């Protein structure tokens, strides 16, 4: 059995250094012009610097291009892909098939990872996009444990599962926060709060708080809880899930670093010392995360044990 890759989302170049020390195996970076809902913004020069730094440490770096592109952004996407080809990250993430067309057109040889978020729901799709260049799929977060295991069993390509953090549950092209302020005649608020990422919607009936922000891709709304599977990893280990993602969106650098260290311990315990060693420490690892959880952000297990109807 091989250890799953521990993939993290750094917020800055100096944060990458901390995360290498914390035991991360792979890093997801990029900028909102091309990638959706990233923990940090890395312009192309920083992508280059990060790639060198990460490769020197013997780790992997992936660049996100998973936005939904409109025609007016296709040209800059092409230029970006050509620059990435020169920089040489280990993968490019995509959701929009336009990326596949451009990659073919310009002979980009960097492997693709398919990450459309909500729509990667069955193993057939993993193999379909695999045959079209995606050596890995990042699964939708709305899947149960059994569904994930069955997908892994039937996939010819790598499977990545988010094990920790917030998940996006909605993206609109409309500027829903700005529109709300304008509706109430608060023109100043639109400008004042444009970059704010500390707002949330409260749903009284469920007493849930959904983080919300706007950027150039529109309005994004997030899950009311953070997934935390640090004490639920045994079946993923056994199934050979290829990568575990810790999504650090809307979290501090210190939080992401600490959580990374704890997942590193969990993975190493299981693979270096055995299942019993993992079982012995997993509750304590969970407690350590619970202790640093930011206010208003409860932990849960996402859809792993939840039944969804339709």
């Amino acid at each position, binding site marked *: 059995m091989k250890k799953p890759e521990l993939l993290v989302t750094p917020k800055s170049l100096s944060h990458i250094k901390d995360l290498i020390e914390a035991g991360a195996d792979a890093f997801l970076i990029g900028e909102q012009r091309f990638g959706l809902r990233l923990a940090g913004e890395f312009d192309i020069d920083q992508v280059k610097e990060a790639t060198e730094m990460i490769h020197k440490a013997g780790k992997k770096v992936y660049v996100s291009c998973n936005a939904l592109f409109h025609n007016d952004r296709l040209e800059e996407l092409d230029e970006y892909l050509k620059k990435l080809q020169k920089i040489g990250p280990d993968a490019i993430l995509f959701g929009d098939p336009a990326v596949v067309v451009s990659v073919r057109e310009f002979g980009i040889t960097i492997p693709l990872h398919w990450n459309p978020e909500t729509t990667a729901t069955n193993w057939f799709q993993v193999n379909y996009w695999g045959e079209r260049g995606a050596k890995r799929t990042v699964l939708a977060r709305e899947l149960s444990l059994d*569904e994930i295991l069955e997908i892994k069993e039937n996939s010819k390509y790598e499977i990545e599962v988010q094990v920790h953090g917030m998940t996006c549950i909605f993206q609109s092209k409309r500027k829903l926060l700005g529109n709300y302020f304008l509706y109430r005649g608060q023109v100043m608020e639109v400008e004042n709060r444009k970059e704010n990422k500390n707002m949330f919607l409260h749903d009284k009936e469920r007493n849930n708080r959904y983080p919300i922000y706007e950027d150039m891709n529109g309005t994004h709304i997030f899950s009311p809880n953070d997934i935390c599977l640090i004490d639920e990893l045994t079946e993923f280990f056994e199934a050979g899930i290829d990568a575990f993602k810790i999504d650090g969106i809307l979290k501090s650098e210190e939080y992401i670093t600490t959580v990374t260290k704890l997942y590193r311990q969990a993975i190493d315990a299981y693979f270096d010392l055995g299942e019993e060693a993992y079982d012995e420490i997993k509750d304590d690892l969970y407690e350590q995360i619970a202790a640093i959880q930011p206010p208003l952000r409860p932990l849960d297990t996402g859809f792993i044990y939840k039944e969804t109807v339709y």
Partner: protein
Amino acid sequence: MLQLIENESIRETINGKRVITKKPELLAPAGSLEKLKVAVHYGADAVFIGGQEFGLRSNADNFTIEEMREGVEFAKKYGTVVYVTTNIFAHNENMAGLEEYLRAIADVGVKGIIVADPLIIETCKKVAPELEIHLSTQQSSTNWKAVKFWKDEGLDRIVLAREVGAEEIRQIKEKVDIEIETFVHGAMCIAYSGRCVLSNHMTARDSNRGGCCQSCRWDYDLYENVDGNEIPLFNQGDAPFAMSPKDLKLIESIPHMIELGIDSLKVEGRMKSIHYVATVISVYRKVIDSYCADPENFKIKREWLEELDRCANRATASAFFEGEPSYKQQMYGFHAKKPEWDFAGFVLDYDEETQMVTLQQRNYFKTGDKVEFFGPEIDTFTMTVGQMWNEDNEPIEVANHPLQIVKFKVEQPLHPYNMMRRWHKK
């Protein structure tokens, strides 16, 4: 309004007059066999229906294979074609039975399927290659390269994302030779389709498999989180945060859409009533036909706009076709809109000799009520209901049983499928 550029490729000169010969398809929703028949009768070129599996809208009374067969046969008599929506994003458990289902759809004469998941695309190519494959708006195709990707994969038509504007459609048509379908009327997602799982998180109902509970229509309170303190960003009495979009209405953009060469104009609403389908389809039919017959002298008639309002239960807007929608295209606070006219009766028969109409009650009405009749064969007219009789020819004053048979005298001739509306105060 955007500038309208005449498209020469869709025109011909007939009897010295420039007319448009490449008319777009008018595509109607049909949530049941009855709705299908109404949509076809009121002028749809094509209808889309849902089967018992693999489609969104799991609450609609979807078609059995036998009903599909009957629907296809009825439609064929009018030269109308039928598409079936199979646009879920499947989970592993939804894979079983797909091949048999697609085979059965093809065997009853359906023309194509509307699909989002490559699982269903590839399975269809394998087991039912005679079916056209249309890419659902659920894939949120927003640019010409994405459209090119799906064309290269062998698809026949792309239903564009609802976020695509007129100029973007023009570029897509220019760069890729494939049929393009866009929405012209009806309720809309506020999110990029397929990219919203609010429903999964709030009610454990899977939006991408037909379970959407429309959480985007709910009210929320907006706060900011300052070091764990919840600071409200609203004052007492303010309308709460909302993201409910007004319904799409592009009747006035139809000439522009025809000139862009859009191949199919889609009306949303498989859950809507036969009255809604009849009203919307008949109006769009008139707009498309009038423009194509004489584009130079075309004008939107006031009566068409008023007619559309008869079945509107929400405010309407043009969304992305005419540019980025502002807050004015969303609904905040109290926003129910009640039309002045209710659908009250469905004409089953008319006896020219006795001038007696036989209709099926669809809503309360009584002797003395002001009503109007409409339908593709007649000019809309209003009258006052006189003495009524029930099925057993007993005199009645009130029609208050759902689906009861009612007869009364109407001087102008009527036809089966004509509809009656009753006026009431707002």
